[in-house]
C-alpha cells in the first residue's frame, strides 16, 4: 500500500479507526492467552497539595484508595479538594479577589479477564460556578509474551458553566440569567513496549474535542480606546464553540547500571485554535538506602491561538477574541525535586506491608512572549497600553503525601 493510499484510508472519521482498533483488541484478547495478567497492588495515599504563584494560592487534600476484590476485580476511589484564593493578573485587571472551593470525587472499577483489563470510571467535580461530570471507559491488552500492552480509552464529559455575581450582602450568588453547557469527548490510544531488559517505552495518543461554552464568563480582552485614561478598555472575551486537539507523547525509560532510572518524555500538541506546543520532560530517579530521590527538568513552549491578542485595535475587532495568557505564545520551565522515605509505622497492624512518606517541590517559571502586565500601564510615566513589561509567572508547587500498601 502506498503512502498516498494509506493517507486516503486514514481520512475517515476517528470513530471508524477506533472501531477497527476495538475489533483488533477483542480478537487479540481471545487469541490464545496463556497466562493471566495482574492488577496493581492495594494502596492508599493521603496527599496535601499547595500551589502558590501569580497571585493565586490553591491548596487542599487528595485521598486515593485502590483495593482488589479477589484476583480479577479492583475498585479505586479519589477524593480531592482545592481551596482557591485568587488575585491573579486577570482578576486584578477586570474583577476583584475571590475565594473558591472545588471538590472532586471519582470512583473507578477494573476487571481483569485473561490478559485484558477493562476499566470504568466516573468523576464528579463541583464548584460554585462550574459542575463537571465525566465517565470514562478503557481496556488494555497484554500481548507478545507480555512485551507489549495496548490500551484504548474513551472519555465523555458533561460540564455546566455558571457565573457568580455579588449579592446585596456583599457575598456571591449564581447569576440567574447565565447558564451554559460544554461537552467533551476524548479518545486515547496507548502502547507500552519492553524494548530490552533495561528499557521500556510508551506511545500515547489522545484526541479531545469540546463543544459548547469554552471561554471564561469572567475574563475580558482589552482593546485600544484613546478616550480612556489608560489608553485601553475591556470587553468580554468570545471563543469559538468547538475545540479539537491532538497530542502524541513518546516516553522512554531506562534502567541505569547503578540502580537508578532516567526517563525522557516528548509530547507534540496541536489544536484547531492554532496552538502548537512541544513538551520535553526528563526525570532522574535515584534510590539510596530507604530513600528514593527524583529530579525533574521540564521544558514547554507553545504558539498563540489564532484569535489571541494582548491588545486588540478596536472594540469587536473580530468574531473571536481571547486574552487568556494560556492562549498566548510563551515558554515554560519547571524544575522539580522529590524525596520518598520508606518506614515502618510504629504499632501498625501486620496487614500493612509498606509505607512511605513523600515530599515534592516543583518550581514553574513561564516567560510570556506577547502577554503584557496591563496593571502596569502608566501613560503619565511613559508606559502606554501595549508597551507594558511582558508578564512572567513564578509558581511553587508543593506536595506532601503518605502512601501505604496493604
Amino acid at each position, binding site marked *: 500500500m502506498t503512502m498516498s493510499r494509506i493517507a486516503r484510508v486514514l481520512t475517515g472519521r476517528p470513530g471508524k479507526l477506533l472501531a477497527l482498533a476495538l475489533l483488533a483488541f477483542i480478537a487479540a484478547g481471545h487469541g490464545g492467552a496463556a497466562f493471566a495478567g495482574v492488577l496493581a497492588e492495594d494502596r492508599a495515599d493521603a496527599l496535601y497539595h499547595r500551589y502558590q504563584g501569580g497571585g493565586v494560592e490553591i491548596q487542599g487534600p487528595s485521598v486515593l484508595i485502590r483495593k482488589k476484590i479477589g484476583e480479577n476485580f479492583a475498585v479505586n476511589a479519589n477524593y480531592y479538594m482545592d481551596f482557591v484564593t485568587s488575585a491573579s493578573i486577570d482578576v486584578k485587571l477586570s474583577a476583584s479577589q475571590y475565594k473558591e472551593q472545588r471538590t472532586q470525587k471519582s470512583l473507578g472499577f477494573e476487571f481483569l479477564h485473561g490478559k485484558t483489563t477493562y476499566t470504568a470510571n466516573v468523576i464528579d467535580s463541583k464548584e460554585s460556578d462550574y459542575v463537571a461530570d465525566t465517565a470514562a471507559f*478503557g481496556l*488494555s491488552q497484554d500481548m507478545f509474551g507480555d512485551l507489549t500492552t495496548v490500551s484504548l480509552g474513551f472519555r465523555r464529559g458533561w460540564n455546566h458553566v455558571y457565573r457568580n455575581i455579588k449579592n446585596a450582602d456583599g457575598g456571591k450568588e449564581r447569576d440567574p440569567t447565565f447558564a451554559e453547557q460544554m461537552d467533551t469527548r476524548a479518545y486515547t490510544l496507548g502502547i507500552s513496549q519492553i524494548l530490552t531488559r533495561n528499557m521500556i517505552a510508551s506511545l500515547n495518543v489522545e484526541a479531545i474535542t469540546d463543544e459548547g461554552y469554552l471561554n471564561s464568563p469572567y475574563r475580558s480582552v482589552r482593546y485600544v480606546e484613546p478616550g480612556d485614561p489608560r489608553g485601553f478598555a475591556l470587553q468580554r472575551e468570545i471563543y469559538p464553540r468547538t475545540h479539537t486537539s491532538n497530542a502524541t507523547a513518546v516516553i522512554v*525509560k531506562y534502567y541505569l547500571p547503578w540502580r537508578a532510572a532516567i526517563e525522557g518524555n516528548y509530547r507534540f500538541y496541536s489544536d484547531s485554535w492554532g496552538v502548537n506546543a512541544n513538551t520535553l520532560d526528563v526525570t532522574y530517579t535515584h534510590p539510596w538506602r530507604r530513600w528514593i530521590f527524583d529530579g525533574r527538568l521540564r521544558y514547554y513552549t507553545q504558539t498563540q491561538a489564532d484569535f489571541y491578542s494582548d491588545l486588540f485595535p478596536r472594540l469587536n475587532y473580530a468574531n473571536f477574541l481571547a486574552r487568556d495568557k494560556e492562549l498566548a505564545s510563551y515558554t515554560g520551565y519547571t524544575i522539580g525535586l522529590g524525596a520518598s522515605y520508606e518506614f515502618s509505622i510504629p504499632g501498625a497492624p501486620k496487614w500493612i506491608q509498606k509505607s512511605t512518606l513523600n515530599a515534592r517541590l516543583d518550581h514553574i517559571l513561564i516567560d510570556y512572549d506577547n502577554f503584557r502586565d496591563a496593571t502596569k500601564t502608566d501613560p503619565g510615566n511613559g508606559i502606554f497600553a501595549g508597551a507594558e513589561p511582558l508578564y512572567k509567572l513564578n509558581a511553587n508547587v508543593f506536595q506532601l503525601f503518605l502512601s501505604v500498601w496493604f
Partner: protein
Amino acid sequence: MTRAMRIAKLVVLLASQLAIVAAMSGCSIQPWVKPYEREHLADPIMAFDRDPVSSAYLDHVFDAREGARGATGGAGGGCGCN
C-alpha cells in the same frame, strides 16, 4: 486535517493491524526479553507512574497553566513485569 491528526490515525491503524496479526498467529511471537530477564523492569523505580496521586495532581497543574492537554497517561500497568 492536520499533520498530527494524520500521524495519530496512522498509529491507530498500524497498532490495530499489529493486534490482528498477533491474534491470527495465536500469539506465537516469542518474547525477546524473557520473564526472568525483567528484574530491572519490575523495580518500582522503573514504573511510568510510581505515585498516581501525585502525578495526577501535577498533570492538573500543568493542564491549568498551559494550552496543551492530553496524552499524559501511561499505557497503564503494562510493563508485563508483575
